[in-house]
């Protein structure tokens, strides 16, 4: 296939890469004043990439099988691009107020997003790894972007060291798989493993375990979650918002693609691992968040728990399960972007506050934020009539039809426990005496995002079909060759 045809298939990635480099040059020549303009242009780029993906049909395989653009990839890419776009928009006011707006921030977010798209489209172990590194490297830098702030630097460094360790685990597993199968291509691996008469060698399974460990780190599933609360707390809040959505979606998509694609025939081997990390994440996410007083740490544990729920769908190992994961991530995206938009507007006398107790009584001082947070908290807890209910419903349903009853029961119990700390925030907002209240005014863009995500959270409960159809189509396109 000619290079032009390959580039055309990978058009969204090519466009993103080229614009990110062009914006870098633009930013360097324009100097300090360019931060705002680079941010606007980055947002325009993201919109253009989303439009391209929406308009065209999934284009197939390119670059000699290293890259695949299918329905599943497109679905996940749209989710992560929307996440990146919304976070970029709401970063603007925050960074201006904190006087931390540098044009590199937007450029690095674009490169991180590019890495995630490469991850989602990986059809080979090597492209998987390079996409992951591109993403992680950009994220390490944005975590530490407020370099004069000790906590931000600490977050970046911690994330970097642990991330490098996880990459090492992943590479080790990949080298074992290559050593025992002689190929890194997902299609050849699927072919080799599907051969009916052969028993998969032990080396392949050990390699798979290492890959699962590396990917579990990237989605921050227990027992590879230790970095999450510290990094979430230390990083600038807008970066935390980004961490909570886009990389999670990309890593879960990658996890799903690897396990449901090439390794689908080893489902017995990986199912027990996924079941374990899923249970551990749900339980730890539910219990550890109770003691948190910092809202960013609380959201870190909440995201660990949510990854556990999403993994329930993956553990099922069926198309219904994959569709559940896809739908879960879509709803997770909406709820988390909304919650972080509220957290970004938590200011007292012009200063960011992060304590859960700072939310006391804001239903009287800031009724709109309180109402929005109420909606998001109910949704995160999975209480109807909010979209979060359906998200959990679908993954548990998939688990039950795959006869993983224990997993589903533990999941439901964990979600009851986690309802405690979500509802505690509602109680603080509505039933406690106001201390100081928060500053009025959240900025036009952030306000719009809060309203839109809150509306979506309610509307998606009324019309769950919209999400589920997309997720179903995505799941079918992923599992077609797994059989």
């Amino acid at each position: 296939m000619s290079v032009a045809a390959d580039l055309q298939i990978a058009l969204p990635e090519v466009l993103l890469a080229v614009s990110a480099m062009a914006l870098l040059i633009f930013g360097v020549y324009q100097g300090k004043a360019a931060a705002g303009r680079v941010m606007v242009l980055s947002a325009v780029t993201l919109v253009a990439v989303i439009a391209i993906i929406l308009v065209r049909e999934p284009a197939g395989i390119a670059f000699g099988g290293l890259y695949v653009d299918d329905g599943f990839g497109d679905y996940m890419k749209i989710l992560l691009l929307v996440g990146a776009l919304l976070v970029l928009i709401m970063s603007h006011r925050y960074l201006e107020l904190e006087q931390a707006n540098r044009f590199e921030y937007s450029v690095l977010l674009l490169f991180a997003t590019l890495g995630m798209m490469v991850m989602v489209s990986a059809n080979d172990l090597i492209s998987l790894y390079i996409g992951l590194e591109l993403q992680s490297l950009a994220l390490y830098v944005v975590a530490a972007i407020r370099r004069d702030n000790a906590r931000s630097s600490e977050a970046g460094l911690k994330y970097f060291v642990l991330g490098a360790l996880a990459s090492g685990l992943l590479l080790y597993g990949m080298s074992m798989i290559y050593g025992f199968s002689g190929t890194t291509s997902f299609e050849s691996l699927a072919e080799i493993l599907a051969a009916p008469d052969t028993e998969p060698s032990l080396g392949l399974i050990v390699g798979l375990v290492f890959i699962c460990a590396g990917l579990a780190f990237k989605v921050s599933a227990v027992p590879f979650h230790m970095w999450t609360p510290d990094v979430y707390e230390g990083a600038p809040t807008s970066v935390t918002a980004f961490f909570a959505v886009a990389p999670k979606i990309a890593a879960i998509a990658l996890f799903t693609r690897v396990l449901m694609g090439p390794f689908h025939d080893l489902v017995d081997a990986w199912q027990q691992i996924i079941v374990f990390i899923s249970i551990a994440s749900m339980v730890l996410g539910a219990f550890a968040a109770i003691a948190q007083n910092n809202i960013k740490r609380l959201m870190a544990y909440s995201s660990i728990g949510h990854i556990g729920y999403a993994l329930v769908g993956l553990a099922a190992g069926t198309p219904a399960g994959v569709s559940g994961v896809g739908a879960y991530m879509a709803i997770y995206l909406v709820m988390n972007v909304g919650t972080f938009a509220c957290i970004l507007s938590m200011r007292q006398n012009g200063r960011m506050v992060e304590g859960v107790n700072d939310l006391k009584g804001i239903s009287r001082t800031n009724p709109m934020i309180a109402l929005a947070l109420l909606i998001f908290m109910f949704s995160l807890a999975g209480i109807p009539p909010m979209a979060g209910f359906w998200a959990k419903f679908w993954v548990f349903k998939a688990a039950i039809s795959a006869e993983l009853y224990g997993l589903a029961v533990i999941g439901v119990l964990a979600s009851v426990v986690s309802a405690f700390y979500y509802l505690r925030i509602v109680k603080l907002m509505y039933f406690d005496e106001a201390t100081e209240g928060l500053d009025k005014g959240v900025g036009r863009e952030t306000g719009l995002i809060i309203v839109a995500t809150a509306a979506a959270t309610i509307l998606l409960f009324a019309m769950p079909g919209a999400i589920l159809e997309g997720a179903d189509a995505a799941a079918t396109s992923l599992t077609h060759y797994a059989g």
Partner: protein
Amino acid sequence: MTLEAIAFYLFSAVAVAAGVMVISSRNPVHSVLFLILAFFNAAGLFVLMGAEFLAMILVIVYVGAIAVLFLFVVMMLDINFVEMRQGFLQYLPIGALIGIILLAELVMIGGAWVVTPEAASVAAVPAPDPATVTNTEALGQVLYTKYAYLFQLSGLVLLVAMIGAIVLTLRQREGVKRQSIATQVTRTREQAIEVKDVTPGQGI
């Protein structure tokens, strides 16, 4: 054959021993030097496998650039390594336990080594005949064609690393005098020289 075997065991034994010394020597400079020794032996192993290109790259990149950078960092930063090591003994038992479990698992895999039957054919397809092409040439043939996608992406990874290094470390200092060639060249005699008529014995 035996010579090759001897060379293999020599290189690997020295590499492992050097690896142990990297983490156990007290002086960080010695650690880095042992690391360089380990790199050289790994390069020797590559040569034995017929991968001269990788061997040379390993020496040039790892020894020539990365290890030297390490040495600079170790010598220029004032880090108290004795203090950093204090937790070492505390974590040793659990670390050793995990290491031993992992080792046991790996030995078990080694014992159960079964190469999947398809593996041989899959692996044989892209490899050119070593008798006709040198391995530098063979790498060059696929690197910019078949793996162009990965090559370009690796370039982006390096670009991000560069942006990161600049974002996190570059500081615009006040009062630094920089050379501006344009200003220097456009300076005229009148701007640069001032003639004063000094009366003897008075000074300016």
